[in-house]
């Protein structure tokens, strides 16, 4: 059954584009500035896919036991063994409760996305602030439920924020790719700076999470990293460090590169591809383990 994890990863990637696009729209509503104008239309276009993406999650909900070890009663002993609060985890990871939560996240996102496309809320600062708060909480919980719980033994408090930052970067990159033909030079410099901020934040969080787990060296914590850095996946990890951090950093240090639409567009394409790799790197090794 290799199809389901691939489906989950691809779906999570597309969902991330849509949610990240919305998050960037809300941030622009709160800050204003010329940088957001040329990408607003593409961001809204990405956000309009939300209802269909929400429906496409149904296969995952139907096939829970095939994906998640905690959904299989026979596996219970294997994953509830050495965690801090097995009682809480056993309650939190009940299939019924899990499905109900998933439906709530998806419904909230669809409603927020729909309101964002309405004239009344399209540029509302108050609505955007509230929407960002809701997205921060539900996005974190969804990342923990749908991706982190593939390996129920493992937990990381930085995981949710790390996923949100990756989604923001992916949504912005997709919008840059779609908008690359339009917009003055000035705006591209600002967009390049924004991409750099996302890349640096992502790298900082990803490394912090790794460093804390590496330093602690506890069996149930390193269990998540061992398949990712001590098997063939290590090559993917190196590719992520290079393509998702070092290359964008070095390119975006140059003002000329930032202000050249063609360079920024190429970088946005590569970041989109690497975000897909990142999502696979988060999902697949957990399923195989």
């Amino acid at each position, binding site marked *: 059954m290799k199809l389901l994890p691939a489906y989950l990863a691809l779906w999570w990637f597309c969902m991330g584009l849509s949610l990240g696009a919305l998050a960037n729209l809300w941030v622009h509503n709160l800050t204003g*500035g*010329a940088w957001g104008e040329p990408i607003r239309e593409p961001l809204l276009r990405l956000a309009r896919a939300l209802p269909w993406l929400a429906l496409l999650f149904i296969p995952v909900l139907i096939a829970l036991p095939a994906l998640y070890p905690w959904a299989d009663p026979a596996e219970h002993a294997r994953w509830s063994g050495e965690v801090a609060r097995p009682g809480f985890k056993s309650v939190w990871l009940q299939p019924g409760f899990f499905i109900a939560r998933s439906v709530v996240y998806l419904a909230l996102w669809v409603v927020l996305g729909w309101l964002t496309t309405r004239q009344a809320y399209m540029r509302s600062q108050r609505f955007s602030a509230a929407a960002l708060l809701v997205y921060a909480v539900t996005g974190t919980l969804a990342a923990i439920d749908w991706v982190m719980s593939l390996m129920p033994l493992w937990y990381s408090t930085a995981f949710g924020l790390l996923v949100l930052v990756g989604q923001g970067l992916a949504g912005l990159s997709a919008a840059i790719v779609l908008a690359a033909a339009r917009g003055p*030079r*000035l705006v591209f410099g600002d967009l390049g700076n924004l991409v750099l901020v996302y890349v640096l934040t992502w790298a900082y969080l990803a*490394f912090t999470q*790794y*460093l804390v787990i*590496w*330093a602690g*060296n506890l069996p149930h914590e390193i269990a998540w990293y061992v398949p990712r850095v001590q098997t063939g996946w290590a090559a993917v990890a190196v590719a992520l460090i290079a393509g998702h951090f070092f290359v964008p950093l070095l390119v975006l*240090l140059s*003002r000329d590169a930032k202000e050249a639409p063609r360079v920024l567009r190429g970088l946005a394409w590569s970041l989109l591809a690497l975000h897909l790799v990142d999502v696979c790197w988060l999902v697949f090794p957990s399923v195989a383990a």
Partner: protein
Amino acid sequence: MKPDALYGVLAEFRTADALLEAARAAKAAGYRDVEAYTPFPVEGLDQALAIPPNRVPLAALVGGIAGGAGTYFLQWYSAVIDYPVNIGGRPLHSWPSYIPATFEITILGAALAAVAAMLIMNGLPRLTHPLFAVPEFDLATRNRFFLCVRARGPRFDAERARAFIATLDPLCLCDVPA
């Protein structure tokens, strides 16, 4: 120094947009040596003034690389060469634990180099400036926007500069004595 030497011709504007328009007009009219003074950063002003690139970013890059490389070397040298200690069975060259300090000192090196380069290149700090002789200039820190056409270069003509600035419809137009 001639007694009537000019620092430049100064124009005052009420809004940031008026200043931006004036800066673009000055650039279009061929004035290359133009300065602007605003109470807050104005988006797009550096492009409108066509400020030539400077070496501050390069200094920051060099400072950052020097700080980062130096810090990494310091940690590697002390942990591997000078005083190797077995800590929890980890390899002597445990790179993950070197990254935080390397990162911090990269930032510090870049920031110090950028500030030093900025001060060296713009001649600050200085005790006074010709612009302070203009009474209205105090408002540059409050709610007014100023554009100054510098009196530099052999082709500068004060009369023509004043006539040009007058077409921009400024609140006031005055000479800045050097």
